[in-house]
């Protein structure tokens, strides 16, 4: 077991900066997801933790121990690759036994450990199967077992579900989460799929362009995105953001959205901070937290997606486009005008210039 501290971590490939000054503390036994679009630096971060790449600058600490110069075979890190990297020319047993065998463990000791881990992962009946003809969920278990047998303090998983079809992914997510509970290791999970991050992780580190955007529990990053990127990236669809200017009215502070009119008044706790920030702002609200009403933003319906459990209504165009998600089919058709009102508690305001959230006092 081990906590991980990343301190001022920087990684450059020639002129390209893959990671700009990353600071992150991952607690012992925590399931941390590194989430972001491709090229955001999440895999680079993971590879540096594993020791596959040397940081250009900064430190990686496991507990108190500085990992600089510790080769990847000696970090006590379990790594599950995107395609699992199972040794296909071996049996399941040989795969599981690989680590202890390479470290020269005694035969009896290897057998005991392989037996125990196979029992735990329900692989006992498959031990003598050749590893090239296994289904994906078994491959995943073998990959995890092969690392887990070394009893690593830290488990790193590099998009292990990205090659799996959508239906199966749900099964695998559950299985993975259960395995983590069993092993109780610190887990770092790299993914570009927010659903995976949201469902499995204790905390999520959202990254973009080599910069750590926000760290928080799934609900924190969903409810209180630190900036515009996180607001747009988390949630499906992402948060609606409308450009506007704060304006005083007799009902309190509102945002003047130009042609769209003015918003309902901002909640009392948010108003002073917005007032203090001055300048243009982005008015944000979750598509899921919108109701149809007679007072609110009046916008034409441009498109309707009916996906069974939910209906996604696209309103307005380009700059002022808004999406609204309803539980039921609300009977709106393209061309109609809808009046939508965001729930007051869901409204978030961002500084238009910096993209940072304006926090309530």
């Amino acid at each position, binding site marked *: 077991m081990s906590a991980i501290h990343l301190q001022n971590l920087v990684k450059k490939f020639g002129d390209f900066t893959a990671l700009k000054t990353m600071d992150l503390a991952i607690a012992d036994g925590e399931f941390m997801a590194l989430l972001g679009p491709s090229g955001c630096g999440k895999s680079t971060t993971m590879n540096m933790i594993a020791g596959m790449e040397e940081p250009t600058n900064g430190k990686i600490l496991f507990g108190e121990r500085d990992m600089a110069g510790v080769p*990847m075979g000696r970090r006590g890190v379990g790594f599950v690759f995107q395609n699992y990297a199972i040794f296909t020319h*071996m049996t399941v047993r040989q795969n599981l036994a690989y680590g202890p065998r*390479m470290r020269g463990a005694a035969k009896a000791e290897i057998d005991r450990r392989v037996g125990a881990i196979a029992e735990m992962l329900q692989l006992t009946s498959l031990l003598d199967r050749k590893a090239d003809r296994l289904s994906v969920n078994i491959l995943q278990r073998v990959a995890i077992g*092969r*690392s887990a047998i*070394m009893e690593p303090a830290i488990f790193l998983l590099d998009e292990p579900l990205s090659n799996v079809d959508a239906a199966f992914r749900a099964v695998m997510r559950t299985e993975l989460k259960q395995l983590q509970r069993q092993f109780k290791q610190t887990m770092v999970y790299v993914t570009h799929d927010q659903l995976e991050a949201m469902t499995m992780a204790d905390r999520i580190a959202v990254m973009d362009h080599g910069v750590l955007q926000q760290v928080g529990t799934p609900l924190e990053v969903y409810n209180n995105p630190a900036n515009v990127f996180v607001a747009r990236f988390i949630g499906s669809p992402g948060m609606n953001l409308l450009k506007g200017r704060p304006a005083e009215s007799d009902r309190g502070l509102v945002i003047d959205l130009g042609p769209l009119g003015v918003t309902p008044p901002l909640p009392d706790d948010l108003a002073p901070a917005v007032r203090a920030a001055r300048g243009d702002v982005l008015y944000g609200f979750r598509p899921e937290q919108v109701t149809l009403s007679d007072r609110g933003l009046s916008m034409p319906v441009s498109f309707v997606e009916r996906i069974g459990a939910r209906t996604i209504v696209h309103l307005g165009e380009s700059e002022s486009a808004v999406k609204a998600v309803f539980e039921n089919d609300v009977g709106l058709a393209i061309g109609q005008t809808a009046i939508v009102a965001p729930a007051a508690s869901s409204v978030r305001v961002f500084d238009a210039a910096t993209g940072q959230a304006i926090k309530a006092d």
Partner: protein
Amino acid sequence: MSAVTATISEDVMKTVQAKPALRDEGAKLGFRLTLPAQILVLFIAVFPLLMQLYISLTDWSPLSGLGWWNAWSLWNNFANYTDLAVDARFWSALKRTAIVMIVCVPAEFLMGLALATLFADEFPGKRIFYSILLMPMMVVPAVAGYMFFMLFQSGGPVNDILSALSGFPVTIAWLSDPTLALIAVMVADIWQWTPLMFLILLAGLVGVPEDQIKAATLLGANPWQRFITIVLPKMKTIIIIALAIRVIENFKIFDTLYIMTGGGPGVATETISVYIYKLTTQDLIWGYVAAIALAILIVLSIAAVFAMKRMAAARQEA
């Protein structure tokens, strides 16, 4: 090739025979379409083979004054094959060929593998070295033979270098000494064919999944362990292919060697091919030559079948 032909014609025949209803359209068309190729194969593979078998059972020679088709009048009751069994020169040529193979092929393999491992990583000047390394393979074997013939002269560069290194004048008569001549011939073969081994093995080495190597590293395997447990098993198929190509080619070793030594001194470097060549062009006993060649073909075919079975098994495993 003949194995492939056999399968095709068998399949066609099966279709033709098995389903009278379908006999017309598909099967007939297929048969007609493959007919030219089959006739061609018949003439370039099957016909010469049958002709060879026929002649090998006779004392026919181009000097006998008979057309080869009339060779039956020189029928010799399998004497060529019984002679072959007790032909000391044949057996020693075979033994020599085997020695050359046992030395050359593993040497080429090990050097090729070492070079491939080296070239799998990046290093400055890699592309230039790569081109230089492939050059021997592109030299016409006869030219290579002449090159090594010059190198190994008693006043040649090899002795000059040895003199310079040792400080004493070295005048070894490489190509006149039975043992040294064989060594010189093997050096030439290794020089020329290590690049091919290198090329094939490099292709195999690059194909080893990098993830699995990384996974092995993370599990604590050192470079040697990774090589033995991951890289080599993954390369098994390609190693068998490379070895099979070189074993077959090396068995037929001729051009370089013939130009360097002509099989001499005496018969010290006389391999099977050289022996056959001499029998064909000097002794002109073609019936006997046909018998030898056929015997070798059978032995090599058995070896090839064995190698292919191993290869199929290896592919299953990999």
